[in-house]
């Protein structure tokens, strides 16, 4: 399983690097603008941190659509992988993309600070809150895909559960926006991420068709 996950990450590395490059470009432009506008505090740190995370999220959506289009499950099921391991690869990929993008956050902050002169400080908790928020959005991709697959495969109950969890996760994430500074807000975000990953993995294992 880890070999398959590593291969997928290597395959989509150019997209991730490209996405992070675009994010760096946006951060640079923003920082230069702020400097010209002579904003006293510079761009807020959480704004700078958001762009690489968004890049990771977008790349996870791109990877998901390519994996479907290229019928990756067919290739992976020719070896000894089980549907459970395939499900793990599917739900771990978004987490890996967002995680790898998070590594670029300090670099982006440094870059913005260099160009803008200084940044408006915010608490680490807010930055963390935004990171988890976008990670949760990234995990919604596989959940939506598996809920749709369940409906197509006439697994009505599984499809209903999938879409119910999808809507619930969005509601929880929307509500947690107002509590980004509190531990409770972060806990609810974590619950949303775990629920999206767990239900997507469970739906994948229950597939009756692995041709896509």
């Amino acid at each position, binding site marked *: 399983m880890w*070999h*398959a996950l590593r*291969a997928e990450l290597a*395959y989509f590395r150019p997209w991730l690097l490209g996405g992070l490059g675009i994010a760096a470009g946006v951060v640079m432009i923003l920082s230069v603008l702020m400097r010209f506008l002579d904003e006293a505090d510079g761009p807020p740190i959480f704004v700078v941190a958001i762009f690489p995370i968004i890049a990771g999220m977008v790349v996870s959506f791109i990877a998901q659509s*390519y994996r479907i289009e*290229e*019928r*990756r*499950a*067919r*290739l*992976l*099921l*020719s*070896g*000894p*992988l*089980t*549907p*459970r391991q395939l499900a793990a690869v599917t739900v771990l990929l978004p987490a890996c993309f967002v995680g790898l993008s998070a590594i670029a956050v300090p670099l982006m902050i440094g870059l913005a600070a260099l160009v803008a002169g200084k940044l408006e400080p915010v608490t680490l908790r807010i930055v963390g809150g935004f990171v988890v928020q976008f990670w949760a959005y990234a995990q919604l991709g596989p959940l939506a895909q598996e809920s749709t697959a369940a409906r197509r495969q006439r697994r009505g109950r599984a499809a209903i559960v999938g879409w119910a969890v999808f809507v619930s996760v969005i509601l929880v994430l929307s509500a947690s926006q107002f509590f980004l500074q509190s531990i409770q807000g972060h806990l609810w975000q974590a619950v949303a991420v775990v629920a999206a990953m767990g239900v997507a993995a469970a739906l994948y294992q229950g*597939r*009756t*068709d*692995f*041709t896509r």
Partner: protein
Amino acid sequence: MNDQRPETTTAARLFGLTKRFPGFQLGPLDLTLDPGTVLALVGPNGAGKTTTLNCMAGLVVPDEGGTEVYGAPVQPTRTEYRRDVGYVGEESGFFQRWTARRNLDFLAKQIPEWSRERARRLSERIALPLDTPVSKLSRGNRTKLAIVAALAHGPRLLLLDEPTSGLDPVVRAEVLDVLWEITEDGDHAVLYSTHVLSDINRLADELAFLRDGELVLRTGRDELSESWRQVSFRLRDEDVELSGIVEYRRVRAEHQVITRDAPATLQQLTELGAEAVEVSRMSVDEIAVQILKEGHHVARASG
């Protein structure tokens, strides 16, 4: 070949295999495939050939019944059967931007039974351009890559899902050559789905005709070409019933029939004193067309 694999007399067995889709039902199918046999699954588009092969490869879970490959049950959650199955389909799931070589390397690390030596020999034998990205490979070369990927772990059962569909005649002949070379040693049991009827002559020992999800006839290729004939004759008595007739035409005084039981029909014609009897052989393609046109009727008549 792995010596630890169980020796069974049946390469693949389908028992009551049923899969339902809105507006279509495959099966229930019962079919066995002996080791060393090349069985062509023949049928028009939408007959259920691909679904049958997907069920046999463990990519689709049947609603009822099941499949066994060399005695091992085929289920996505079990992996034992996969070492014996090589699958060549229209879509094989390759990493499109990677080269053929990199895809094969990936599989070599992924599949324990994979033989790099076998993959290398096969690639050389079929002249596969290993250093071209899969997305830039021609359709024929993609099929060749799928063949290498399907065979490098030494499976005993090869599932071929319309491998020549959409190929131009030259590449089609090339791919058929490759498949013929691979299957002629008799080491592989092959289930070959096709609606390109001219492929049948080259590869298949046996034929299974599928129509609207139902198996209408299974027979040996030679048996089929021996029993089907086109016969023209003249007969004074107009009101007779001949056995085995699938198609009848009358051109002026001459009767023209297609029979699926040539010896019986000719015997009857002799007894009835038919004149100007002319018998001509039919190609397997022509016979297949007749069977698929008259599927249910032929199945009942021959059953």
